[in-house]
C-alpha cells in the first residue's frame, strides 16, 4: 500500500549538530529509496526555502537536529509555504526544545523533573540577576548542572561542584544560548524512551506507543564532562535496558505522558534519569527530531521492538500526511 512520494530530506544546517544531522539524513535517504520513494536531499542553508519552492516535493522529512530544525523555525516556515513535514509542529518543537518551558510545563503537570531555575544573560546585565545566584545555588545545591536552554550539543552542558565553579559554568553555557537552566545534578542511570504515534494512517486515534527503553552505559565510572559521555566508543547502549518490569513500565508511561503533554507528533525521544540513591525516575528532556544514524537510540529501540528501520521511516513519514 505504500505510495511513491517525492520526499525532500532536510539535513545539515548550521547547528552544532550538523555532522550528526548529515548522517541521520543520509541514513533516512537510503531507507526512503529502498522504500521506493523519490528522494531529494536539501542542506538547510540560505537557499532552503527557494530550493523547496522550486523542487515542489510532496513532503519534507526533517532530519535536522538542534537550532532551526528542532526549535520550530523550520516547521513554521514549512507551514508558511504549505509543505507537509514529518514530526511535531512548531508549538510542540518550541515547548520541547526550550528546556525552561518544558520543565515548567512538566512541573505543573506533576511529572518529575529535577529542581531548576532558568537564568537569562540579559537579566544579569540589566536586572542585577547576579544577586540571585546565591539563592539559586542554595535551593538547588551542589553539584549542579548548567545547560543552555536551547541547544542539544553536549559542549554547552557545564558542571559546577562548588560555588567557585559556578560563574565559569554559567559563562560557558551562555556561549551557546542567551538563557540557561541551572538544574540539580542527578546521578544515576541514563535512560531514553522513544515514542511513536500509536495510530497509523486511516486508523482510529490511539495513544502513542512507547518503544523499549535504551540505557546508555558509560565505559568509565565517573565523567569529567558531558562531552566524553557522549563520545562515540565511550558509551555502550543496552536495549532493552535491564530494569525491573515496573521501572520499565513507569519510564514508558512517563515518556508517553510527556509526549502528549508537550503535543509531540510522529516521533520523539524522551530522556530520563533513574536516580541511583533514591530509585526515582526523572524526566530530563524531550527531543523532537531524534537521531536517525546507525548508532542512534531511536533506531535501536525500534529494532528491539521488531520495527525495521524502513518501517520506522515509513511511520515517521505518515505523520506528515496524517496532519
Amino acid at each position, binding site marked *: 500500500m505504500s505510495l511513491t512520494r517525492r520526499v525532500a530530506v532536510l539535513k545539515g544546517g548550521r547547528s552544532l549538530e550538523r555532522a550528526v544531522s548529515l548522517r541521520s539524513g543520509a541514513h533516512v535517504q537510503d531507507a526512503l529509496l529502498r522504500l521506493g520513494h523519490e528522494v531529494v536531499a536539501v542542506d538547510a542553508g540560505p537557499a532552503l526555502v527557494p530550493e523547496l519552492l522550486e523542487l515542489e516535493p510532496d513532503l519534507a522529512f526533517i532530519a535536522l537536529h538542534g537550532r532551526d530544525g528542532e526549535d520550530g523555525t523550520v516547521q513554521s516556515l514549512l507551514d508558511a509555504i504549505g509543505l507537509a513535514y514529518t514530526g511535531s509542529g512548531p508549538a510542540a518543537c518550541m515547548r520541547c526544545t526550550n528546556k525552561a518551558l518544558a520543565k515548567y510545563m512538566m512541573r505543573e503537570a506533576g511529572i518529575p523533573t529535577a529542581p531548576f531555575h532558568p537564568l537569562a544573560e540579559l537579566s544579569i546585565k540589566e536586572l542585577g540577576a547576579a544577586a540571585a545566584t546565591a539563592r539559586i545555588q542554595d535551593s538547588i545545591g551542589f553539584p549542579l548542572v548548567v545547560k543552555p536552554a536551547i541547544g542539544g*550539543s553536549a559542549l554547552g552542558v557545564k558542571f559546577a561542584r562548588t560555588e567557585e565553579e559556578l*560563574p565559569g559554568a554559567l559563562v560557558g*553555557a551562555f*556561549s551557546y544560548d542567551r538563557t540557561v537552566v541551572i538544574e540539580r545534578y542527578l546521578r544515576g542511570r541514563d535512560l531514553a524512551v522513544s515514542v511513536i504515534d500509536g495510530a497509523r494512517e486511516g486508523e482510529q486515534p490511539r495513544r502513542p506507543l512507547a518503544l523499549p527503553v535504551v540505557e546508555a552505559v558509560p565505559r568509565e565510572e565517573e565523567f569529567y564532562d558531558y562531552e566524553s559521555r557522549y563520545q562515540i566508543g*565511550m558509551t555502550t547502549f543496552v536495549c532493552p535496558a535491564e530494569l525491573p518490569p515496573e521501572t520499565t513500565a513507569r519510564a514508558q508511561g512517563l515518556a508517553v505522558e510527556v509526549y502528549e503533554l508537550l503535543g509531540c507528533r510522529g516521533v520523539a525521544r524522551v530522556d530520563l534519569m533513574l536516580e541511583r540513591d533514591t530509585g526515582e525516575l526523572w524526566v530530563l528532556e524531550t527531543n523532537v527530531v531524534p537521531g536517525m544514524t546507525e548508532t542512534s537510540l531511536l533506531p535501536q529501540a525500534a529494532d528491539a521492538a521488531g520495527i*525495521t528501520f524502513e518501517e520506522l521511516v515509513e511511520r515517521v513519514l505518515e505523520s506528515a500526511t496524517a496532519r
Partner: protein
Amino acid sequence: MELSGSGGGDGRGTRATAHELARYEALFAARTRGMKSSAMREMMALTERPDVISLAGGLPDTSTFPPELYSRLMAKVAADSTARALQYGPTEGMAATVDCIVEVMAAEGTRVEPSEVIVTTGGQQVLDLVCKTLIDPGDVIVAEAPTYPGAVPTFSAYQADVEQVEIDADGMPIDALESTLDRLSAQGRRPKFIYTVPNFQNPGGVTMSLARRRRLIALARERELLILEDNPYGLLRYEGEPLPTLYSLDAEAVGRGGTSDLVIYLGTFSKILSPGLRLGWSVAPRPVLEKLNLGKQGADLCSSSVTQMFVAAYFAERAADGGPEWRRYVEELRALYRTRRDVMLAALEEHFVGDATWTRPQGGLFIWATLDERIDTTDLLALARKTESVAFVPGRAAFVDGRSGASSMRLNFAGVPEERIREGVRRIGRAMREQLGLLGSLTGTSAKARPPVAAPASEKATERMADVVALPRRGEQPAARRQRDR
C-alpha cells in the same frame, strides 16, 4: 557474517541499524577506541565557511605562489616526463626530489646524505610511520604541552600513552623533562621517543633555546632516547639568529663527520612551498629508516610522482638574480609573514591587552594566547563563531587529555591578509570581553590571565634568554576599551 549490500529484495525486510552497528562494532580493532570524534572538532569544521574569518587553520598563504610559474612547471612536468610522472616511483622517493630535500636542509645548516632520506606524503605521514614503527599500545611518548594538535589523533590512534611536559618561553624545559623521565623510570617505563617542535612551536610559537637543544641532545645520548624533531617552519624565521637543528647537534656529538643516531627528523614542503603537494620527508638512523620504508610500502607504496617531479622542476628554477627561485620565494614568504605577525601582535596589543597574554614568535605561523583561567576557549569559539563569525583553535586541541589548555587559543597569522587579521582579532577580543564582563558581573572581580607560557626558570645560568615572550602588560582600563569597541 554478511556485510556487503543492504540485503537486496524490495528492501522491506532489511534488518539494519542496531544489529548492523553491533556487527561492525565487533569487527573494529581495539585501536579504533582511541580514534575519537570530538564535539570540539566538529564545531571547528563548522567554521570552514567563507563568511567566517578563520585564524584557526595551519595554512600558509598559497595565493602568493606565481600562477604563471605554477602552470609553466606543471606543463613542463607533463610534457617532458609524461610516463614517469604518471607512474609509481620508488618508496623512498625520487632521487631528484631527495636532492631538493638535501638542499633545503643545507639551507638550515644541516648536512644529510641522500641515502638517509625518505620522501613522505606530507610531514604528517612521518608522524604516522614513526608511531607505526615504534609504538605498541601503552608505550610512552613524551611531548610538549601544548603540542601540535595534528599529532594528537596520530598518537591516540596508536594507543600511545602521552606524557606532556609544559613548555616555557624557551621551549621544553630540560629539568622538567628529566623529572618526567625519572618518574617514568621509577615505574619501570621509558619513552619510545621525545616529540618536539623546536622552532616556532605549533601551537606555542616559542623556540627551544640553544642551551636547551644541547642539553636535550646530551640527555638523549646519556639515556639512549630517540627524539622526533618536527621542523616544518625552521626557514620561516623573521628575527634573531637561526639555531642548529637537533639533528645536526646530534651528528656533531657523534663526531667524525657522522650522522645523527638518535634524532628522527621530520621536514615538509608544506610551509615553504605548498601543503597541496602533500610532500614531506624524514631523515632517520638507518635501522629506523628501513622500518619507515617498509611501513610506507604498506601505507601508500610511494608518494605522488607528479608532485615530486613538480618540486624537482621548481628547485631547478633560477630567480632574476641567478639564485635559486625557491630561496627567493621563501624570502618573499618571510617578508609577508613577518608583516602579518607584526599586524597580529599590534592587534592583540590593541584588543587583548590587560585581559590576555600571548607569545611573541620569532618565526612560524602561530601565536598562542592565554585568557582568564575561567574562560574556556571552546565555549568562546561557540560564541564567537555565532555572534562574530570568527574562528581560532581552542587550546584543548593541543592536549592529549582534551581538557588542559582550556583557557588558551592558537591564532594563525600567516594564512590571512592583514585586514582580516586585524578584524579577526578585534572580533575575538569583543567576544572575550563579553564573557569577561559577564564573569565580572557574576563575581565582582576583574580578569586574571596567566602568562601564555611561563618565563624560563633559571634552570642553568646559560639558559637565561628573556626575549621570547611578551609578558602581560597592564595598559588601558578594560572598561574604557570595552566602550570604545562598541
